[in-house]
């Protein structure tokens, strides 16, 4: 079997909302626990687990994510919570997209890719201010296990208003400005199930990632569900179109492509199955 670099792993999940008023989830803990357990079984180091009200937006903030417990203190992170992608039409029929996700923390209830106002709308839509800088520290891969985390247009959407808003979206538009050293993001287009039938995806992906199988394909295989209509997506960066596509197809913990920080990124690529 392939020789695999040992990684530090972080897990973040919320099942119960006592402060922030979101609907309860049932399996976010299982998703993260399964992933972390599978990684640990292969000798990877579980460096951070933050759950329920101990998971904080500060762990994901551009200015705070390198502090203890922050996502940029680990190499491989798994976040399971509620979330979504939203968009607003700008002059010239261009759309600005952002993703947000929920916490139940005294530090705040929501974090997002860009700065939002109290209505969860962009504070400065013409010049969106990135609120996440993933990979500036140690982070290289992050699973965003929440609904519409890597939205691809209207794929896997039913609601008419949601379709209108998301028609032009793609994961690179939404997340590209947050790439600063992170290699790949793993998520979903459309809603992601919180269900016993699919709660093994964290463990299944962790087992394959941990032993050095190709990361993108492992996520797409293990998080896809034809019956539940779960459609996983993976987003990767590269210096060029070709390099980003190659990273997407082949990167694994046994074959890690170079880390690129903001200015070096020339293109993105994403992969999905439907």
């Amino acid at each position: 079997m392939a020789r695999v670099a040992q990684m530090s792993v972080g897990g973040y999940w919320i099942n119960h909302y006592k402060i922030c008023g979101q609907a309860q989830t049932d399996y976010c803990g299982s998703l993260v626990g399964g992933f972390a357990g599978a990684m640990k079984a292969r000798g990877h180091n579980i460096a951070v687990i933050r759950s329920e009200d101990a998971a904080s937006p500060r762990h994901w903030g551009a200015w705070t994510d390198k502090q203890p417990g922050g996502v940029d203190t680990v190499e491989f992170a798994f976040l399971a919570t509620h979330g979504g992608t939203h968009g607003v039409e700008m002059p010239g029929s261009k759309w600005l997209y952002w993703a947000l996700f929920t916490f139940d923390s005294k530090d705040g209830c929501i974090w997002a890719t860009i700065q939002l106002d109290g209505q969860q709308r962009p504070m400065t839509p013409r010049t969106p201010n990135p609120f996440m800088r993933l990979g500036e520290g140690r982070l290289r891969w992050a699973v965003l296990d929440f609904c519409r985390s890597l939205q691809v247009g209207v794929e896997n959407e039913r609601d008419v208003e949601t379709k209108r808003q998301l028609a032009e979206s793609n994961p690179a538009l939404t997340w590209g400005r947050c790439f600063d050293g992170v290699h790949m993001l793993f998520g979903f287009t459309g809603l992601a199930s919180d269900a016993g039938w699919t709660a093994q995806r964290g463990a299944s992906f962790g087992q394959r990632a941990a032993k050095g199988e190709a990361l993108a394909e492992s996520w797409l295989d293990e998080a896809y569900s034809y019956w539940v209509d779960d459609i996983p997506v993976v987003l990767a960066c590269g210096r060029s179109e070709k390099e980003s596509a190659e990273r997407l197809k082949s990167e694994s913990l046994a074959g890690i492509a170079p880390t690129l920080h903001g200015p070096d990124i020339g293109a993105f690529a994403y992969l999905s199955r439907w």
Partner: protein
Amino acid sequence: MALSLTFDEMPEMVAEWAAIHELRVPPIDRRTVAGLLDRMGLGDRSGGFTWEKHLSWLTTGDDRTTVAIHELSGGLRYRLRPLQDEPERDVATAPSRLEEIARGFLDRLGRPNEPLALERITYLRAQTTARDGSLLTPSTLDAGLIFTRTVDELPVIGPGGLAMVKIGTDDTVVGGREIWRPIARRGAKVRLRTPDESIELLRSRLAASGVDGEIHVRKARQGYGELGIEEEQKYLEPCYAFLLETVGGLVDSKKVEVISAVSAPTTTA
């Protein structure tokens, strides 16, 4: 806010009677896997493969090929050619030909050893973008054909009960996955709950767990529920499965509720 269910579809009574069947996964060992390697056309290369037993997975392969079987579920997954070696940019083959290739491969493999129904054809879709997110080049790197089964009139639903075959851009089978537990002993048929009874149980369960507000029922099906590739399952039991979603919120959610369809297992047909 009171619980309100909006049904996109209502569950149908596909069968009034159905049995609980005993499942048994045959023992998994190197010989089992070696036989599969031969039937996959890997016999001449398999001498150079490494083997590993980790947790419940028995895995063999090299840097290009992986074949793994889960000893609790009997589930199989395989990658026969790395994704980066796809020779073309797109799958251009007609669906009928893809189905023919997939069925031919599964016939050679000898499993699953039951009639297969083609559920759908999926495609592995890649898209590159410029740094600013503007779209550049799309491609379809494989076709993934999903086959499912029916047991005693009832479809097998859930994360299991499927065989997926991935066909690359040159019509070669490049990978696949199978979660298809064999039935070891057939049970006696029992009367099943009606759809109305299942909906009442669904309402009660949601109310008891504090769910409120407007819930859309996207799917509501009677079938046999089969679990995923990592799980042990001893019985195949009839159920009603409901796919539930919220819509239009700042964040939405999707859940699955599975209700047993067996109400009175002492009444046999």
